[in-house]
């Protein structure tokens, strides 16, 4: 039988490093917010003729849109993001581009006013907070017959925060490199990941509960380890089937739901990791009061690693 719980400090270390890199990236690059949250206009234009990315950017700058974001999204297709455009400004902009680059079709146009952006930001904040509180309460309630049910809820929430941090960190790196933005699809993806990750955690907690009730062992570590091993193939298989469909989405649809699919991809991996290696291990450490030991262990791990 695998000894998973014995390596618990290593799991924390790995997560810690990934999250730390993410936080450094967040501090450096920040998160690029989409127009839903920061207001502005964006459009996707399909040019009939071949248009050079830099020329387009230059032309936009000439027209006064110096801070416009320009991305090539396909053959002759460009994503352009500017400050909020009025009807006249938009018509003038498109006319100028037609004059310079020839015929174009507007495939998409979105414009969000500052008022709506602020509102959306707040509502999203409340939704994420509500999801966290709801899940904490629910998991605590689901494990109410266990001693210290609040610990189950808390560990599930920490695992969830872990996943959100990993996703945000990696996204901030992608944002820094590829100009990816945090949009509503991203938030939808994050909330889906939250649900997914807790779903996995609950399955493992459920097995811990069952094994504790059965009295498999008086040693909590053995119980946790057994539960993990017993549910291991389930955890991996479910993640695999979900990853398959997410990959299909990413490869075949891409574009508009690219953010969403990538969040799910990262989130499912992080969520599977955290429900196996973070949440149950935290439960164990908490049960044993090992926090101090973990801190002392870190330099040893460094010495071993170095």
């Amino acid at each position, binding site marked *: 039988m695998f000894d998973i719980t014995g390596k618990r400090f290593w799991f924390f270390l790995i997560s810690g490093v990934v999250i730390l890199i993410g936080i450094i990236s967040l501090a450096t690059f920040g998160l690029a917010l989409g127009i839903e949250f920061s207001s502005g206009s964006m459009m996707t234009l399909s040019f009939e003729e071949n248009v050079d990315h830099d020329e387009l950017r230059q032309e936009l700058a000439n027209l006064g849109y110096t801070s416009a974001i320009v991305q090539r999204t396909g053959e002759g297709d460009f994503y352009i993001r500017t400050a909020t455009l009025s009807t006249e400004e938009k018509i003038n902009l498109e006319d100028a581009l037609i004059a310079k680059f020839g015929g174009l079709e507007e495939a998409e146009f979105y414009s969000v006013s500052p008022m709506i952006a602020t509102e959306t930001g707040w509502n999203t904040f409340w939704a994420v907070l509500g999801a966290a509180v*709801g899940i904490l309460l629910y998991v605590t309630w689901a494990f109410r017959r266990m001693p210290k049910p609040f610990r189950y809820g808390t560990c599930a929430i920490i695992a969830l925060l872990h996943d959100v941090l990993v996703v945000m960190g990696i996204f901030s790196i992608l944002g820094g490199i590829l100009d990816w933005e945090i949009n*509503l699809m991203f*938030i939808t993806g994050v909330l889906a990941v939250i649900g997914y990750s807790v779903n996995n955690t609950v399955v493992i907690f459920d097995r811990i509960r069952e094994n504790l009730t059965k009295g498999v062992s008086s040693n909590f570590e053995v119980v946790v380890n057994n539960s993990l091993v017993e549910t291991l193939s389930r955890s991996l*298989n479910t993640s695999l089937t979900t990853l398959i469909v997410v990959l299909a989405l990413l490869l075949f*649809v891409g574009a508009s739901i690219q953010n969403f699919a990538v969040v799910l991809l990262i989130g499912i991996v992080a969520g599977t990791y955290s429900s196996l290696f973070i949440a149950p291990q935290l439960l164990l450490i908490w049960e044993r009061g090992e926090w101090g030991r973990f801190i002392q262990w870190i330099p040893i791990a460094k010495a071993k690693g170095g």
Partner: protein
Amino acid sequence: MTRKNTLVFLVILAIFAFAICALIYPMFGREQIRLGLDLVGGSHLVYQAQFPEGATGEYKARAMDRALDTIRSRIDKYGVTEPIIQKQEGERILVQLPGFTDIEAAKNLVEQTGFLEFREVELNNGNPVYLSDYLESEDPDFFDKGEDGSRIFVDNNGNPVAFLIKDEEGNLSYIDEEGNPIDIEELKQIDEQIKEKVLLSWIPARGDDGTQLTGSFLSEATPRPDERAGITYAMKIGIVWNEEGGIIFDDIAKRLYSRPDDSVERRLGIFLDTVLISSPQIIEPAYHGSGEITSPGGFTIEEANHLANLLESGALPMPLQKPPLYEEMVSATLGAGFIDMSIKAGIIGIILVMLFMIVYYRLPGALASVALIFYGTLVLALFKLIPVTLTLAGIGGFVLSIGMAVDANVLIFERMKEELRAGRTLGASIEAGFSRAWTAIRDSNITTFIVCGILYWLGSNIVASAPVMGFALTLFIGVAISMFSAIVVTRTLLRLLVGTSLAQRTSLFSVYSGRR
């Protein structure tokens, strides 16, 4: 047990058959799965209504309802299928036009107030009054003491330069279109730049009882060919007044007709949203309830249709803030591309998941795959019947739920394998697998439901709600149905197998005794 199981199996078959029929044939008046704007293309606008300070709640509510009716009747003339025009919290108006991708035209159609009013030139001792007269006047007061209404000064193109109003204390002040005060010195400069005297003072045209003539007295407005000499293919608008409007109009016509010949004093100014669209001369003393609106060069067909539509639907009871709070336009080709791509993604996803299940779990995996087909069909049928408006994100939610739908089966099969390894019979293992996995399935899916609920709340509280809402709904339906298909359908199929020769071959259940 077996008889009951056969019965359940028949019920499942019946549901499956029903779902297939529901997808193929129109049912409950629904022809097809309803697709969101991002898939069919179209425009989506959200406007903020602007009310004067101190407007009562009741007044606002009535005005909002009238505005919705007005916008609806304007849009109806364009033959948009299933437009959505709704009021939203915070005095907002949502307009969704599926298939209508000319967002500029859509905005023009919705946001134009469409306030038609008739004005005449202010007179001072029989002479027309110009802006310069007011600007040079020592004692600023209206020249026409009998008329307290606003004065509009328009340039050669008919665009308003300034408005002159009298406040409650009797002081005159100049304001612009947005109601901001204009400096007199600035106005003097503008007046001097326009050399000729053109900035006439237009005052409201009123009937003998003092009622101002506005578009609200119109009963019909129809585009007609304009057959005046010198213009080709031009249009005009034929108008028909209601009874009261006809009387007021004739009062005004009589008065203007009786004035000295061929001069500005005989003109009737027709203003749409404070822009002078034409100023015809009144050449008859009475028009008996009908008339026409022409423009100097004639209207184009589009202009005439638009204007007639605008006039007939009436003015918006309040202006809408420009630009809109939210604008969205997706072209139809882009949407069609998304549909093709997501169907491809869904089919490939479902095939790969089925392959994985069959390779890993063998016979039960094959049964779970059958359940997955049942699942997919039923969910799509429900989308159509409820109906759920399917957006790109909604399809994402559905495809994701395919991957998650087998989760309950995975849980159950893993459990079954454990029981088989522990030496139970197949029948006992199946029952134990299902009953023991149940708490985990229930508790874990509830967390997904919580998230769906939160997403639904978020979707109903934000303006760009389609992606969030669509995802929440499809994921919720998907997970709920997946519990049914994984538990009831797969179990029924497995029970049917128990007792057949297939069930004797443990290799089909991918359990190898002594492997571990």
